[in-house]
Protein backbone atom coordinates (compact mmCIF):
# COMPACT_ATOMS: atom_id res chain seq x y z
CA UNK A 1 0.00 0.00 0.00
CA UNK A 2 1.25 3.49 -0.82
CA UNK A 3 1.61 6.26 1.74
CA UNK A 4 -1.49 8.08 0.52
CA UNK A 5 -3.53 4.88 0.57
CA UNK A 6 -2.57 4.31 4.18
CA UNK A 7 -3.35 7.94 5.01
CA UNK A 8 -6.79 7.48 3.50
CA UNK A 9 -7.26 4.27 5.43
CA UNK A 10 -6.36 5.99 8.70
CA UNK A 11 -8.89 8.72 7.94
CA UNK A 12 -11.60 6.07 7.67
CA UNK A 13 -10.34 4.23 10.75
CA UNK A 14 -10.52 7.50 12.70
CA UNK A 15 -14.17 7.85 11.78
CA UNK A 16 -14.75 4.19 12.62
CA UNK A 17 -13.09 4.59 16.01
CA UNK A 18 -15.00 7.73 16.92
CA UNK A 19 -18.30 6.13 15.93
CA UNK A 20 -17.47 3.22 18.23
CA UNK A 21 -16.83 5.63 21.10
CA UNK A 22 -20.16 7.31 20.44
CA UNK A 23 -21.87 3.92 20.41
CA UNK A 24 -20.37 2.97 23.75
CA UNK A 25 -21.11 6.31 25.40
CA UNK A 26 -24.65 6.60 24.09
CA UNK A 27 -25.97 3.51 25.88
CA UNK A 28 -26.45 4.40 29.54
CA UNK A 29 -28.42 2.65 32.28
CA UNK A 30 -31.39 1.30 30.36
CA UNK A 31 -34.38 -0.14 32.23
CA UNK A 32 -34.57 -3.84 31.38
CA UNK A 33 -38.01 -3.43 29.82
CA UNK A 34 -36.35 -1.22 27.18
CA UNK A 35 -33.67 -3.76 26.29
CA UNK A 36 -35.67 -5.45 23.56
CA UNK A 37 -36.95 -2.21 21.93
CA UNK A 38 -33.46 -0.73 22.09
CA UNK A 39 -31.99 -3.84 20.48
CA UNK A 40 -34.66 -3.61 17.79
CA UNK A 41 -33.95 0.07 17.30
CA UNK A 42 -30.24 -0.54 16.83
CA UNK A 43 -31.17 -3.38 14.49
CA UNK A 44 -33.07 -0.98 12.24
CA UNK A 45 -30.10 1.36 12.09
CA UNK A 46 -27.79 -1.14 10.43
CA UNK A 47 -30.40 -1.22 7.69
CA UNK A 48 -28.29 1.69 6.42
CA UNK A 49 -26.59 -1.08 4.46
CA UNK A 50 -29.39 -0.34 1.97
CA UNK A 51 -27.34 2.67 0.85
CA UNK A 52 -24.51 0.33 -0.04
CA UNK A 53 -26.85 -2.11 -1.71
CA UNK A 54 -28.32 0.64 -3.91
CA UNK A 55 -24.84 1.78 -4.91
CA UNK A 56 -23.69 -1.67 -5.98
CA UNK A 57 -27.00 -2.11 -7.81
CA UNK A 58 -26.17 1.06 -9.75
CA UNK A 59 -22.82 -0.43 -10.67
CA UNK A 60 -24.11 -3.91 -11.47
CA UNK A 61 -23.45 -4.92 -15.08
CA UNK A 62 -23.14 -8.70 -15.05
CA UNK A 63 -26.32 -10.74 -14.43
CA UNK A 64 -24.78 -12.28 -11.33
CA UNK A 65 -23.99 -8.85 -9.87
CA UNK A 66 -27.51 -7.76 -10.69
CA UNK A 67 -28.96 -10.77 -8.92
CA UNK A 68 -26.79 -10.25 -5.85
CA UNK A 69 -27.62 -6.56 -5.66
CA UNK A 70 -31.32 -7.27 -6.08
CA UNK A 71 -31.23 -9.62 -3.10
CA UNK A 72 -29.08 -7.16 -1.18
CA UNK A 73 -31.50 -4.29 -1.80
CA UNK A 74 -34.50 -6.42 -0.85
CA UNK A 75 -32.80 -7.73 2.29
CA UNK A 76 -31.65 -4.30 3.40
CA UNK A 77 -35.03 -2.68 2.80
CA UNK A 78 -36.71 -5.43 4.81
CA UNK A 79 -34.28 -4.69 7.62
CA UNK A 80 -35.04 -0.96 7.48
CA UNK A 81 -38.80 -0.94 7.08
CA UNK A 82 -39.56 -3.94 9.26
CA UNK A 83 -37.10 -2.84 11.90
CA UNK A 84 -38.53 0.62 12.44
CA UNK A 85 -42.16 -0.49 12.30
CA UNK A 86 -41.75 -3.34 14.76
CA UNK A 87 -39.71 -1.14 17.11
CA UNK A 88 -42.43 1.46 17.06
CA UNK A 89 -45.04 -1.18 17.86
CA UNK A 90 -42.99 -2.38 20.83
CA UNK A 91 -42.65 1.16 22.10
CA UNK A 92 -46.36 1.82 21.99
CA UNK A 93 -46.40 -0.09 25.28
CA UNK A 94 -44.75 2.91 26.88
CA UNK A 95 -47.31 5.40 25.63
CA UNK A 96 -49.03 5.91 28.98
CA UNK A 97 -45.69 5.94 30.70
CA UNK A 98 -44.54 9.09 28.95
CA UNK A 99 -46.25 11.30 31.52
CA UNK A 100 -44.73 9.31 34.37
CA UNK A 101 -41.06 9.48 33.47
CA UNK A 102 -40.18 13.06 32.54
CA UNK A 103 -36.79 14.20 33.81
CA UNK A 104 -35.60 17.79 33.21
CA UNK A 105 -31.83 18.14 33.27
CA UNK A 106 -32.16 20.32 36.35
CA UNK A 107 -33.59 17.48 38.39
CA UNK A 108 -30.85 15.16 37.20
CA UNK A 109 -28.03 17.48 38.27
CA UNK A 110 -29.54 17.94 41.67
CA UNK A 111 -30.63 14.34 42.07
CA UNK A 112 -27.06 13.37 41.30
CA UNK A 113 -25.59 15.84 43.75
Amino acid sequence: MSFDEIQGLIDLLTVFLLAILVGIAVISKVPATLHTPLMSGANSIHGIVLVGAMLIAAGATTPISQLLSLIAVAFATMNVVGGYVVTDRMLQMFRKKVVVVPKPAGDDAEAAS
Partner: protein
Amino acid sequence: MTTLEIVEILVRIAWLVGAVGFVIGLSRMNSPATARNGNLVSAGGMAIAIAATAILILVRQTNGEPIAGVAWIIIVVGIALGGGLGLYTARTVKMTAMPQLVSLFNAVGGGAAALIAIDDYLHLVDAGAAVRIDTNVFIVLDIIIGSITFTGSIIASGKLQGLIPGKPIQVPGGQLVTIALAAVTVVSALILFVTGTPNLLLMLIILAAALTFGVTMTLPIGGADMPVVISLLNSFTGTAVAMAGFVINNPVLIIAGALVGASGAILTKLMADAMNRSVLNIMIGGFGGGDDAAGAVAGPGGAVRSIGADDVAIQLAYAQHVIIVPGYGLAVAQAQHAVRELAELLEERGVDVKYAIHPVAGRMPGHMNVLLAEANVPYPQLKEMDDINPEFARADVALVIGANDVTNPAARRPGSPVSGMPILDVDQAKSIVVIKRSMGKGYAGIDNELYTNEKTGMLFADAKDGLAALTAAVKAL
Protein backbone atom coordinates in the same frame (compact mmCIF):
# COMPACT_ATOMS: atom_id res chain seq x y z
CA MET B 1 -17.51 22.45 -10.04
CA THR B 2 -19.85 20.29 -12.11
CA THR B 3 -23.41 19.65 -10.98
CA LEU B 4 -22.40 16.07 -10.22
CA GLU B 5 -19.63 17.21 -7.91
CA ILE B 6 -21.96 19.59 -6.09
CA VAL B 7 -24.51 16.81 -5.67
CA GLU B 8 -21.82 14.39 -4.50
CA ILE B 9 -20.96 16.89 -1.75
CA LEU B 10 -24.57 17.57 -0.76
CA VAL B 11 -25.20 13.84 -0.56
CA ARG B 12 -22.21 13.33 1.72
CA ILE B 13 -23.61 16.04 3.98
CA ALA B 14 -27.04 14.41 3.90
CA TRP B 15 -25.43 11.13 4.93
CA LEU B 16 -23.80 12.88 7.87
CA VAL B 17 -27.15 14.34 8.89
CA GLY B 18 -28.60 10.85 8.76
CA ALA B 19 -25.81 9.50 10.96
CA VAL B 20 -26.42 12.23 13.53
CA GLY B 21 -30.09 11.28 13.47
CA PHE B 22 -29.13 7.71 14.38
CA VAL B 23 -27.08 8.86 17.36
CA ILE B 24 -29.75 11.22 18.68
CA GLY B 25 -32.38 8.56 18.12
CA LEU B 26 -30.42 5.89 19.98
CA SER B 27 -29.72 8.12 22.96
CA ARG B 28 -33.39 9.10 23.20
CA MET B 29 -34.29 5.41 23.20
CA ASN B 30 -32.50 5.04 26.53
CA SER B 31 -35.47 6.22 28.55
CA PRO B 32 -39.14 5.23 28.25
CA ALA B 33 -40.33 8.84 28.07
CA THR B 34 -38.44 9.64 24.87
CA ALA B 35 -37.96 6.16 23.38
CA ARG B 36 -40.71 6.31 20.79
CA ASN B 37 -39.72 9.74 19.58
CA GLY B 38 -36.13 8.55 19.41
CA ASN B 39 -37.11 5.76 17.07
CA LEU B 40 -38.81 8.30 14.81
CA VAL B 41 -35.73 10.55 14.78
CA SER B 42 -33.61 7.56 13.80
CA ALA B 43 -36.08 6.63 11.06
CA GLY B 44 -35.96 10.20 9.80
CA GLY B 45 -32.18 10.02 9.53
CA MET B 46 -32.54 6.79 7.60
CA ALA B 47 -35.04 8.32 5.19
CA ILE B 48 -32.71 11.24 4.49
CA ALA B 49 -29.72 8.98 3.87
CA ILE B 50 -31.65 6.72 1.49
CA ALA B 51 -33.31 9.55 -0.44
CA ALA B 52 -29.94 11.24 -0.86
CA THR B 53 -28.47 8.02 -2.25
CA ALA B 54 -31.28 7.68 -4.79
CA ILE B 55 -30.70 11.27 -5.92
CA LEU B 56 -26.98 10.65 -6.15
CA ILE B 57 -27.48 7.65 -8.44
CA LEU B 58 -29.95 9.58 -10.55
CA VAL B 59 -27.62 12.56 -11.02
CA ARG B 60 -24.70 10.27 -11.77
CA GLN B 61 -26.77 8.65 -14.47
CA THR B 62 -27.94 11.92 -16.00
CA ASN B 63 -24.31 13.03 -15.98
CA GLY B 64 -23.40 10.18 -18.22
CA GLU B 65 -22.11 7.57 -15.82
CA PRO B 66 -22.85 4.13 -17.25
CA ILE B 67 -25.80 3.12 -15.10
CA ALA B 68 -27.96 0.53 -16.85
CA GLY B 69 -31.68 1.22 -16.71
CA VAL B 70 -32.05 -2.22 -15.18
CA ALA B 71 -30.32 -0.81 -12.10
CA TRP B 72 -33.46 1.18 -11.37
CA ILE B 73 -35.60 -1.88 -11.87
CA ILE B 74 -33.42 -3.73 -9.41
CA ILE B 75 -33.64 -0.94 -6.86
CA VAL B 76 -37.36 -0.35 -7.21
CA VAL B 77 -38.28 -4.03 -7.27
CA GLY B 78 -35.91 -4.79 -4.42
CA ILE B 79 -37.29 -1.99 -2.27
CA ALA B 80 -40.87 -2.95 -3.11
CA LEU B 81 -40.25 -6.60 -2.26
CA GLY B 82 -38.24 -6.07 0.90
CA GLY B 83 -40.29 -3.11 2.05
CA GLY B 84 -43.58 -4.89 1.51
CA LEU B 85 -42.40 -8.02 3.27
CA GLY B 86 -40.92 -6.09 6.16
CA LEU B 87 -43.96 -3.89 6.57
CA TYR B 88 -46.41 -6.77 6.41
CA THR B 89 -44.59 -9.02 8.88
CA ALA B 90 -43.85 -6.16 11.26
CA ARG B 91 -47.49 -5.05 11.19
CA THR B 92 -49.04 -8.47 11.62
CA VAL B 93 -46.64 -10.24 13.99
CA LYS B 94 -48.00 -11.02 17.47
CA MET B 95 -46.27 -8.95 20.12
CA THR B 96 -44.90 -12.05 21.78
CA ALA B 97 -43.31 -13.15 18.49
CA MET B 98 -41.47 -9.87 17.94
CA PRO B 99 -38.03 -11.01 19.11
CA GLN B 100 -37.81 -13.74 16.50
CA LEU B 101 -38.91 -11.26 13.85
CA VAL B 102 -36.24 -8.79 14.95
CA SER B 103 -33.81 -11.67 14.64
CA LEU B 104 -34.99 -12.26 11.07
CA PHE B 105 -34.52 -8.60 10.17
CA ASN B 106 -31.08 -8.84 11.68
CA ALA B 107 -30.35 -11.89 9.53
CA VAL B 108 -31.23 -10.15 6.28
CA GLY B 109 -29.25 -7.09 7.33
CA GLY B 110 -26.17 -9.22 7.85
CA GLY B 111 -26.88 -11.02 4.59
CA ALA B 112 -27.03 -7.75 2.66
CA ALA B 113 -23.72 -6.67 4.16
CA ALA B 114 -22.09 -9.96 3.11
CA LEU B 115 -23.55 -9.68 -0.40
CA ILE B 116 -21.95 -6.27 -0.88
CA ALA B 117 -18.54 -7.75 -0.13
CA ILE B 118 -19.17 -10.77 -2.35
CA ASP B 119 -20.24 -8.58 -5.26
CA ASP B 120 -17.18 -6.40 -4.79
CA TYR B 121 -14.97 -9.47 -4.73
CA LEU B 122 -16.48 -10.76 -7.97
CA HIS B 123 -15.48 -7.48 -9.62
CA LEU B 124 -11.96 -7.96 -8.30
CA VAL B 125 -11.90 -11.50 -9.65
CA ASP B 126 -12.95 -10.24 -13.07
CA ALA B 127 -10.25 -7.57 -12.94
CA GLY B 128 -7.80 -10.26 -11.87
CA ALA B 129 -5.30 -7.69 -10.60
CA ALA B 130 -3.67 -8.09 -7.19
CA VAL B 131 -5.91 -6.88 -4.35
CA ARG B 132 -4.79 -4.36 -1.74
CA ILE B 133 -4.30 -6.05 1.60
CA ASP B 134 -6.73 -3.76 3.43
CA THR B 135 -9.46 -4.23 0.84
CA ASN B 136 -8.87 -7.95 1.12
CA VAL B 137 -9.15 -7.89 4.91
CA PHE B 138 -12.33 -5.83 4.96
CA ILE B 139 -13.97 -7.96 2.30
CA VAL B 140 -13.13 -11.20 4.10
CA LEU B 141 -14.24 -9.85 7.49
CA ASP B 142 -17.46 -8.55 5.98
CA ILE B 143 -18.23 -11.91 4.37
CA ILE B 144 -17.37 -13.88 7.50
CA ILE B 145 -19.24 -11.74 10.02
CA GLY B 146 -22.18 -11.13 7.70
CA SER B 147 -22.61 -14.81 6.93
CA ILE B 148 -22.37 -15.86 10.57
CA THR B 149 -25.07 -13.36 11.52
CA PHE B 150 -27.20 -14.44 8.59
CA THR B 151 -27.46 -18.13 9.47
CA GLY B 152 -27.01 -17.58 13.22
CA SER B 153 -29.93 -15.17 13.42
CA ILE B 154 -32.14 -17.45 11.38
CA ILE B 155 -31.46 -20.33 13.76
CA ALA B 156 -32.05 -18.07 16.77
CA SER B 157 -35.32 -16.90 15.26
CA GLY B 158 -36.35 -20.48 14.53
CA LYS B 159 -35.65 -21.50 18.11
CA LEU B 160 -37.79 -18.72 19.54
CA GLN B 161 -40.52 -19.48 17.04
CA GLY B 162 -40.38 -23.13 18.08
CA LEU B 163 -39.63 -24.29 14.52
CA ILE B 164 -36.35 -25.57 15.90
CA PRO B 165 -36.44 -27.19 19.35
CA GLY B 166 -35.34 -24.58 21.87
CA LYS B 167 -33.37 -27.10 23.89
CA PRO B 168 -29.61 -27.08 23.27
CA ILE B 169 -28.95 -29.37 20.31
CA GLN B 170 -25.67 -31.17 20.89
CA VAL B 171 -24.39 -32.55 17.60
CA PRO B 172 -21.93 -35.34 18.49
CA GLY B 173 -18.51 -33.72 18.29
CA GLY B 174 -20.24 -30.41 17.56
CA GLN B 175 -17.50 -28.49 19.31
CA LEU B 176 -14.95 -30.12 17.01
CA VAL B 177 -16.93 -29.21 13.90
CA THR B 178 -17.19 -25.61 15.05
CA ILE B 179 -13.47 -25.42 15.75
CA ALA B 180 -12.66 -27.08 12.41
CA LEU B 181 -14.82 -24.55 10.57
CA ALA B 182 -13.15 -21.69 12.37
CA ALA B 183 -9.75 -23.13 11.42
CA VAL B 184 -10.69 -23.52 7.75
CA THR B 185 -11.96 -19.93 7.61
CA VAL B 186 -8.88 -18.45 9.24
CA VAL B 187 -6.45 -20.45 7.07
CA SER B 188 -8.17 -19.62 3.78
CA ALA B 189 -8.37 -15.98 4.84
CA LEU B 190 -4.65 -15.90 5.60
CA ILE B 191 -3.82 -17.46 2.22
CA LEU B 192 -5.90 -14.76 0.51
CA PHE B 193 -4.12 -12.02 2.42
CA VAL B 194 -0.65 -13.32 1.70
CA THR B 195 -1.16 -14.05 -2.01
CA GLY B 196 -2.91 -10.78 -2.90
CA THR B 197 -4.38 -12.40 -6.04
CA PRO B 198 -8.19 -12.77 -5.96
CA ASN B 199 -9.26 -16.40 -5.64
CA LEU B 200 -12.95 -17.20 -6.08
CA LEU B 201 -12.66 -20.75 -4.76
CA LEU B 202 -11.08 -19.78 -1.47
CA MET B 203 -13.69 -17.05 -1.09
CA LEU B 204 -16.50 -19.57 -1.58
CA ILE B 205 -14.88 -21.90 0.97
CA ILE B 206 -14.78 -19.04 3.47
CA LEU B 207 -18.39 -18.20 2.69
CA ALA B 208 -19.57 -21.78 3.15
CA ALA B 209 -17.56 -22.26 6.33
CA ALA B 210 -18.88 -19.02 7.85
CA LEU B 211 -22.48 -19.85 6.98
CA THR B 212 -22.17 -23.27 8.60
CA PHE B 213 -20.34 -21.79 11.56
CA GLY B 214 -23.30 -19.53 12.24
CA VAL B 215 -25.51 -22.61 12.51
CA THR B 216 -23.23 -24.75 14.66
CA MET B 217 -22.55 -21.77 16.92
CA THR B 218 -26.21 -21.08 17.64
CA LEU B 219 -27.73 -24.58 17.71
CA PRO B 220 -26.18 -25.65 21.04
CA ILE B 221 -27.49 -22.58 22.86
CA GLY B 222 -30.68 -22.91 24.91
CA GLY B 223 -33.77 -21.06 23.70
CA ALA B 224 -33.86 -19.06 26.91
CA ASP B 225 -30.57 -17.40 26.06
CA MET B 226 -31.72 -16.37 22.59
CA PRO B 227 -32.50 -12.73 23.48
CA VAL B 228 -28.87 -12.26 24.46
CA VAL B 229 -27.65 -14.15 21.41
CA ILE B 230 -29.83 -12.05 19.10
CA SER B 231 -28.48 -8.88 20.67
CA LEU B 232 -24.94 -10.16 20.14
CA LEU B 233 -25.61 -11.05 16.50
CA ASN B 234 -27.19 -7.62 16.13
CA SER B 235 -23.91 -6.10 17.21
CA PHE B 236 -22.15 -8.40 14.71
CA THR B 237 -24.30 -7.10 11.86
CA GLY B 238 -23.37 -3.57 12.81
CA THR B 239 -19.71 -4.52 12.50
CA ALA B 240 -20.32 -6.27 9.19
CA VAL B 241 -22.02 -3.15 7.83
CA ALA B 242 -19.07 -1.04 8.95
CA MET B 243 -16.78 -3.46 7.09
CA ALA B 244 -18.97 -3.11 4.01
CA GLY B 245 -18.51 0.63 4.42
CA PHE B 246 -14.75 0.16 4.23
CA VAL B 247 -15.11 -2.10 1.19
CA ILE B 248 -17.12 0.38 -0.88
CA ASN B 249 -15.43 3.27 0.94
CA ASN B 250 -18.65 4.82 2.23
CA PRO B 251 -18.54 6.86 5.45
CA VAL B 252 -22.18 6.58 6.49
CA LEU B 253 -22.02 2.79 6.45
CA ILE B 254 -18.88 2.94 8.57
CA ILE B 255 -20.37 5.35 11.10
CA ALA B 256 -23.76 3.70 11.46
CA GLY B 257 -22.24 0.23 11.47
CA ALA B 258 -19.67 1.04 14.14
CA LEU B 259 -22.37 2.79 16.16
CA VAL B 260 -24.57 -0.31 16.19
CA GLY B 261 -21.62 -2.62 16.67
CA ALA B 262 -20.52 -0.82 19.81
CA SER B 263 -23.87 0.04 21.36
CA GLY B 264 -25.09 -3.46 20.55
CA ALA B 265 -22.16 -4.95 22.44
CA ILE B 266 -22.88 -2.80 25.51
CA LEU B 267 -26.56 -3.68 25.33
CA THR B 268 -25.75 -7.38 25.11
CA LYS B 269 -23.76 -7.09 28.30
CA LEU B 270 -26.59 -5.21 30.05
CA MET B 271 -29.05 -7.92 29.00
CA ALA B 272 -26.82 -10.72 30.24
CA ASP B 273 -26.21 -8.87 33.51
CA ALA B 274 -29.94 -8.32 34.02
CA MET B 275 -30.43 -12.10 34.22
CA ASN B 276 -27.07 -12.43 35.84
CA ARG B 277 -25.34 -14.51 33.19
CA SER B 278 -22.06 -13.81 31.45
CA VAL B 279 -22.12 -13.48 27.66
CA LEU B 280 -19.19 -15.85 27.23
CA ASN B 281 -20.89 -18.32 29.54
CA ILE B 282 -23.95 -18.15 27.30
CA MET B 283 -22.08 -18.54 24.01
CA ILE B 284 -20.34 -21.70 25.22
CA GLY B 285 -23.70 -22.88 26.54
CA GLY B 286 -24.15 -22.47 30.27
CA PHE B 287 -27.18 -23.49 32.30
CA GLY B 288 -29.53 -21.81 29.83
CA GLY B 289 -31.70 -24.92 29.63
CA GLY B 290 -34.58 -23.35 27.72
CA ASP B 291 -37.71 -25.49 27.47
CA ASP B 292 -36.12 -28.58 28.89
CA ALA B 293 -36.35 -27.15 32.38
CA ALA B 294 -40.11 -27.16 32.16
CA GLY B 295 -41.71 -30.47 33.07
CA ALA B 296 -38.58 -31.84 34.65
CA VAL B 297 -39.64 -33.14 38.05
CA ALA B 298 -37.36 -32.82 41.05
CA GLY B 299 -38.22 -32.97 44.75
CA PRO B 300 -37.06 -29.89 46.65
CA GLY B 301 -35.91 -29.80 50.27
CA GLY B 302 -39.23 -29.59 52.12
CA ALA B 303 -42.83 -30.76 52.13
CA VAL B 304 -45.14 -29.28 49.49
CA ARG B 305 -48.78 -28.40 50.16
CA SER B 306 -50.95 -29.01 47.13
CA ILE B 307 -54.20 -27.02 46.97
CA GLY B 308 -57.40 -27.21 44.90
CA ALA B 309 -58.96 -24.60 42.61
CA ASP B 310 -62.02 -24.13 44.85
CA ASP B 311 -60.00 -23.30 47.95
CA VAL B 312 -57.90 -20.83 45.95
CA ALA B 313 -61.07 -19.30 44.48
CA ILE B 314 -62.43 -18.63 47.99
CA GLN B 315 -59.13 -17.08 49.13
CA LEU B 316 -59.10 -14.80 46.09
CA ALA B 317 -62.75 -13.86 46.17
CA TYR B 318 -62.65 -12.70 49.79
CA ALA B 319 -59.22 -11.07 49.62
CA GLN B 320 -58.77 -7.28 49.55
CA HIS B 321 -55.40 -7.06 47.84
CA VAL B 322 -54.26 -9.66 45.32
CA ILE B 323 -50.93 -9.46 43.52
CA ILE B 324 -50.54 -11.58 40.40
CA VAL B 325 -46.96 -12.66 39.61
CA PRO B 326 -46.73 -13.79 35.98
CA GLY B 327 -43.71 -15.73 34.72
CA TYR B 328 -42.42 -17.67 31.78
CA GLY B 329 -45.07 -20.32 32.28
CA LEU B 330 -47.81 -17.79 31.54
CA ALA B 331 -46.20 -17.20 28.17
CA VAL B 332 -45.74 -20.91 27.46
CA ALA B 333 -49.39 -21.57 28.25
CA GLN B 334 -50.48 -18.42 26.38
CA ALA B 335 -52.66 -17.76 29.42
CA GLN B 336 -52.56 -13.96 29.22
CA HIS B 337 -56.23 -13.67 28.31
CA ALA B 338 -57.25 -16.19 30.98
CA VAL B 339 -55.46 -14.22 33.66
CA ARG B 340 -57.08 -10.96 32.56
CA GLU B 341 -60.52 -12.57 32.79
CA LEU B 342 -59.87 -13.79 36.32
CA ALA B 343 -58.50 -10.39 37.34
CA GLU B 344 -61.53 -8.57 35.94
CA LEU B 345 -63.85 -10.97 37.67
CA LEU B 346 -62.13 -10.35 40.99
CA GLU B 347 -62.22 -6.60 40.50
CA GLU B 348 -65.96 -6.72 39.89
CA ARG B 349 -66.13 -8.29 43.34
CA GLY B 350 -64.18 -5.32 44.71
CA VAL B 351 -60.83 -7.05 45.03
CA ASP B 352 -57.87 -4.79 44.24
CA VAL B 353 -55.67 -6.63 41.73
CA LYS B 354 -52.14 -5.70 40.65
CA TYR B 355 -49.55 -7.41 38.47
CA ALA B 356 -45.95 -7.65 39.71
CA ILE B 357 -43.65 -7.42 36.69
CA HIS B 358 -40.10 -8.67 37.21
CA PRO B 359 -37.72 -7.13 34.67
CA VAL B 360 -36.50 -10.51 33.47
CA ALA B 361 -39.60 -12.59 34.01
CA GLY B 362 -40.19 -14.70 30.94
CA ARG B 363 -37.58 -15.13 28.24
CA MET B 364 -37.04 -11.64 26.92
CA PRO B 365 -36.91 -8.26 28.62
CA GLY B 366 -40.42 -6.84 28.78
CA HIS B 367 -41.83 -10.28 27.96
CA MET B 368 -44.59 -9.94 30.55
CA ASN B 369 -45.38 -6.37 29.48
CA VAL B 370 -45.95 -7.38 25.87
CA LEU B 371 -47.83 -10.50 26.87
CA LEU B 372 -50.28 -8.67 29.12
CA ALA B 373 -50.48 -5.64 26.83
CA GLU B 374 -51.58 -8.08 24.14
CA ALA B 375 -54.41 -9.20 26.42
CA ASN B 376 -55.26 -5.50 26.98
CA VAL B 377 -54.49 -5.59 30.67
CA PRO B 378 -54.71 -1.91 31.69
CA TYR B 379 -51.13 -0.64 31.81
CA PRO B 380 -51.45 1.11 35.20
CA GLN B 381 -52.11 -2.29 36.81
CA LEU B 382 -48.59 -3.46 35.83
CA LYS B 383 -46.18 -2.57 38.64
CA GLU B 384 -42.41 -2.69 38.22
CA MET B 385 -40.49 -4.72 40.79
CA ASP B 386 -39.27 -1.80 42.87
CA ASP B 387 -42.77 -0.31 43.13
CA ILE B 388 -44.57 -3.52 44.02
CA ASN B 389 -42.12 -5.19 46.41
CA PRO B 390 -43.12 -3.05 49.40
CA GLU B 391 -46.77 -3.93 48.75
CA PHE B 392 -46.45 -7.71 49.08
CA ALA B 393 -46.55 -7.41 52.87
CA ARG B 394 -50.05 -5.91 52.55
CA ALA B 395 -51.24 -8.45 49.97
CA ASP B 396 -53.70 -11.10 51.18
CA VAL B 397 -52.87 -13.43 48.30
CA ALA B 398 -49.90 -13.52 45.93
CA LEU B 399 -50.93 -15.55 42.88
CA VAL B 400 -47.78 -16.83 41.17
CA ILE B 401 -48.49 -18.04 37.63
CA GLY B 402 -45.71 -19.96 35.94
CA ALA B 403 -43.03 -17.86 37.59
CA ASN B 404 -40.16 -19.53 39.36
CA ASP B 405 -36.66 -18.02 39.44
CA VAL B 406 -37.89 -14.46 39.77
CA THR B 407 -39.56 -15.45 43.05
CA ASN B 408 -36.78 -17.67 44.39
CA PRO B 409 -35.59 -16.47 47.83
CA ALA B 410 -32.33 -18.34 47.17
CA ALA B 411 -31.36 -15.29 45.12
CA ARG B 412 -30.95 -13.38 48.39
CA ARG B 413 -28.18 -15.76 49.48
CA PRO B 414 -24.86 -16.17 47.67
CA GLY B 415 -23.90 -19.48 46.11
CA SER B 416 -26.87 -20.19 43.86
CA PRO B 417 -27.01 -19.53 40.10
CA VAL B 418 -29.57 -16.77 40.72
CA SER B 419 -27.69 -15.18 43.62
CA GLY B 420 -27.62 -11.42 43.35
CA MET B 421 -30.62 -11.23 41.02
CA PRO B 422 -33.19 -8.96 42.69
CA ILE B 423 -36.44 -10.91 43.15
CA LEU B 424 -40.08 -10.23 43.84
CA ASP B 425 -40.70 -10.48 47.60
CA VAL B 426 -43.59 -12.89 47.12
CA ASP B 427 -42.79 -14.64 50.39
CA GLN B 428 -43.88 -11.46 52.20
CA ALA B 429 -47.51 -11.96 51.20
CA LYS B 430 -50.01 -13.26 53.81
CA SER B 431 -50.79 -16.23 51.58
CA ILE B 432 -49.17 -17.57 48.44
CA VAL B 433 -50.66 -19.61 45.59
CA VAL B 434 -48.47 -21.00 42.82
CA ILE B 435 -49.88 -22.27 39.54
CA LYS B 436 -47.51 -24.51 37.66
CA ARG B 437 -47.66 -27.93 36.09
CA SER B 438 -45.27 -29.73 38.37
CA MET B 439 -42.31 -29.22 40.66
CA GLY B 440 -40.33 -28.60 37.48
CA LYS B 441 -37.44 -26.20 37.67
CA GLY B 442 -37.13 -22.86 35.92
CA TYR B 443 -34.55 -21.36 33.64
CA ALA B 444 -31.84 -21.47 36.28
CA GLY B 445 -32.58 -25.13 36.91
CA ILE B 446 -32.68 -24.92 40.70
CA ASP B 447 -35.27 -25.73 43.37
CA ASN B 448 -37.43 -22.90 44.71
CA GLU B 449 -37.90 -22.93 48.48
CA LEU B 450 -40.89 -20.64 48.02
CA TYR B 451 -42.84 -23.76 47.09
CA THR B 452 -42.03 -25.38 50.43
CA ASN B 453 -42.91 -22.22 52.38
CA GLU B 454 -45.81 -23.14 54.73
CA LYS B 455 -47.75 -20.11 53.47
CA THR B 456 -47.62 -21.57 49.95
CA GLY B 457 -50.25 -23.71 48.26
CA MET B 458 -49.35 -25.34 44.93
CA LEU B 459 -52.05 -25.53 42.27
CA PHE B 460 -50.55 -28.03 39.85
CA ALA B 461 -51.94 -27.30 36.38
CA ASP B 462 -51.16 -25.79 33.05
CA ALA B 463 -51.46 -22.05 33.61
CA LYS B 464 -54.32 -21.64 31.15
CA ASP B 465 -56.38 -24.57 32.48
CA GLY B 466 -55.64 -23.63 36.08
CA LEU B 467 -56.80 -20.06 35.54
CA ALA B 468 -59.92 -21.22 33.70
CA ALA B 469 -60.73 -23.49 36.62
CA LEU B 470 -60.21 -20.62 39.07
CA THR B 471 -62.47 -18.29 37.08
CA ALA B 472 -65.17 -20.92 36.98
CA ALA B 473 -64.83 -21.58 40.70
CA VAL B 474 -65.00 -17.86 41.57
CA LYS B 475 -68.07 -17.44 39.37
CA ALA B 476 -69.66 -20.41 41.13
CA LEU B 477 -69.30 -18.77 44.55
